[in-house]
């Protein structure tokens, strides 16, 4: 072989030797998961909240048969919309987009949905007066080596005395919890995993509108409303679901997206009963009472945010980020404060009590300019029973255990089942919706 031939052949061999495996590898590398999946089984999703709707949307995109069973008369779960109360639409449930770096951030950009950064100003009710800042730093709940004790106890340890009680209640309330129940250690771990961004955004319309227009609208025809699931029998190869009217539904896989109190209180009977480690894990995930009260006034006497009230630790001007500016103040009430107000027994009593607190803060201006109120008490909703999940003291890896599928038949989604720090959020719920479809398809492939 002469030199010219050798060069030619070795070059061709080298390039061929490189390109053939590369081309082969490229052909094997699919752009999306389960590109060629072909599943003719049926999936039933229990709950038409963000997680359930998104799981349905993904199943539809893969051509898989599904049905959504929703206990209440509406879809959306803990998302809701109130119109006619003010000159802008009101979010009765989830309201803020917590960070843009999420799947919903992409959906918002894609759908050209209008959102605004909520950088409204805060005043504190401290030592019976409204102040612009607090004497002591309250940013003490993040860092290394934090103990597994409550926010309340840790604040006292760090010298935040009784005058900070409702400031701390507000910090815990942001996590949907009473300060005596939220774990400093557990919540800090959640914060370390958090990666969607710290800025909060408000919707020009409502959060519900985004989910409704971009997700629910694609799967609405598959939702059975007013269908209260009472029993799930997964003892046979076909899973049989029974509702409160004794109607039955058969499925090969079930995605359960109901709020954690529904699982904790065993409102759904499982046959066979769920493993002990599962029910123990459910019991360790916290979810406290929560309500939103919208107070409409004839003039805007209030500040954009008022933190630290003993009745309601967080008030917020609800018109921030909206196209119109009716004088609506949101009372965002969590934990023990929500329990107390719920115990008053009526919306009128709740409203009166809140107005009394605002009168104290603003020299009687609340009652004199009060126009109307709307109470959205998620605690007394029998299909929700609270606000959103939080990390309790001694919770450990309960969320991970709670999330594990059972017998390749039962799959668990919803905000409480988010194990990477995004529980309590709509985008966290959405993540669990598609995660469980991935789990189902992985099980089918196996």
């Amino acid at each position, binding site marked *: 072989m002469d030199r010219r031939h050798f060069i030619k052949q070795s070059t061709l061999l080298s390039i061929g030797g490189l390109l053939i495996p590369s081309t082969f590898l*490229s052909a094997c590398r699919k752009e999306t998961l389960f590109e060629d999946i072909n599943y003719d089984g049926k999936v039933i999703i229990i709950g038409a909240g963000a997680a359930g709707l998104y799981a349905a949307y993904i199943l539809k995109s893969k051509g898989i048969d599904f049905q959504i069973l929703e206990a209440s008369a509406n879809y959306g779960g803990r998302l809701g919309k109130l119109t006619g109360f003010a000159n802008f639409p009101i979010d009765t449930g989830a309201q803020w987009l917590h960070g843009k770096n999420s799947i919903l951030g*992409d959906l918002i950009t894609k759908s050209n949905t209008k959102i605004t950064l909520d950088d409204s100003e805060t005043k504190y009710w401290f030592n019976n007066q409204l102040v612009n800042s607090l004497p002591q730093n309250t940013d003490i709940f993040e860092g290394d080596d934090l103990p597994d004790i409550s926010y309340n106890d840790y604040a006292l340890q760090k010298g935040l005395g009784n005058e900070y009680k409702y400031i701390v209640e507000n910090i815990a309330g942001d996590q949907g919890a009473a300060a005596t129940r939220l774990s400093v250690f557990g919540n800090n771990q959640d914060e370390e995993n958090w990666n969607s961004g710290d800025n909060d955004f408000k919707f020009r319309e409502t959060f519900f509108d985004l989910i409704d227009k971009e997700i629910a609208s694609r799967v609405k025809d598959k939702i059975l409303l007013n269908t209260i699931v009472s029993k799930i029998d997964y003892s046979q190869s076909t899973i049989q679901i029974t509702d409160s009217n004794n109607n039955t539904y058969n499925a090969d896989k079930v995605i359960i997206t109901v709020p954690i109190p529904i699982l904790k209180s065993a409102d759904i009977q499982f046959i066979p009963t769920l493993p002990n480690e599962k029910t123990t894990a459910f019991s360790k995930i916290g979810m406290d009472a929560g309500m939103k009260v919208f107070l409409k006034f004839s003039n805007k006497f209030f500040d954009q945010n008022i933190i630290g009230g003993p009745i309601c630790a967080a008030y917020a001007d609800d018109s921030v980020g909206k196209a119109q500016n009716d004088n609506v103040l949101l009372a965002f009430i969590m934990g023990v404060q929500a329990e107390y107000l719920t115990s008053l027994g009526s919306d009128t009593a709740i409203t009166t009590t809140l107005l009394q607190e605002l009168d104290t803060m603003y020299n009687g201006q609340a009652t004199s300019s009060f126009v109307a109120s709307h109470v959205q008490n998620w605690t007394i909703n029998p299909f929700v029973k609270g606000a959103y999940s939080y990390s309790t003291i001694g919770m450990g890896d309960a969320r991970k255990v709670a999330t594990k599928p059972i017998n390749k038949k039962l799959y668990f989604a919803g905000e409480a089942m988010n194990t990477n720090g995004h529980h309590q959020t709509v985008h966290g719920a959405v993540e669990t919706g598609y995660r469980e479809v991935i789990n189902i398809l992985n099980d089918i492939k196996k």
Partner: protein
Amino acid sequence: MRAVLFGMLFFTFNSIIAQEFRTDISYKYIFANKWDKAIQTYNFSRPFLEKKQPLLMHGLNASVSYIFKSSSSLKHGIHISYNYFKSSAENENLKNILNLHFLNLGYIIHYENNEKTKGLYTDLIISAVSSGLFRNVNDEPFEYDEARAKAFGIGGDLSIRAGYYLKLKNKIYLSPFVLVGYTPYFYSPNSEAVINQTKGLVSNNWTGIFTTQVGLTLHIRQHQND
């Protein structure tokens, strides 16, 4: 003037210590399983995107190397290379681009035996690899909390390269080459957050990376008796 001065210094330096100076450009193919999974999950979980995000697969590489003077057929040298990969998907209102940059700093063991395999050479390259993964949305760097979404990575790479010298002019050679590389453990903890905007849902903090390259190298070689 500055360029001329630099050129003179370079050739002086090259003739003193270097047996060979190389610069090359090549096509590079990359297979990083965990990044594939993150992009596949991104596409799977976003049916609202009509156009899917392509996998990070095809890129360009540019590098320079010095082989130090030695009378042995086994020589050694240093190597620095830059690689760039891009994945772009343009949907209505959402143009998403992933830009992946690598910088390799390596040590070369170079083998050539003119008596046995005239013109043929092989290199074993051991490199430290660093990377930067960035996301652009609608032609702007994607930012949240007033900071750019980014993921940096680090790892070690082992590559084998083979080429064939073609003499163009005195001391100047051209060689086509192929290269196969493997990075068993590339630590890039934030890459899932940049690609799929999640953490711990899709992949671990690391990925294995397999690469192949084909390209052309320009050599300035000192002859053994220079």
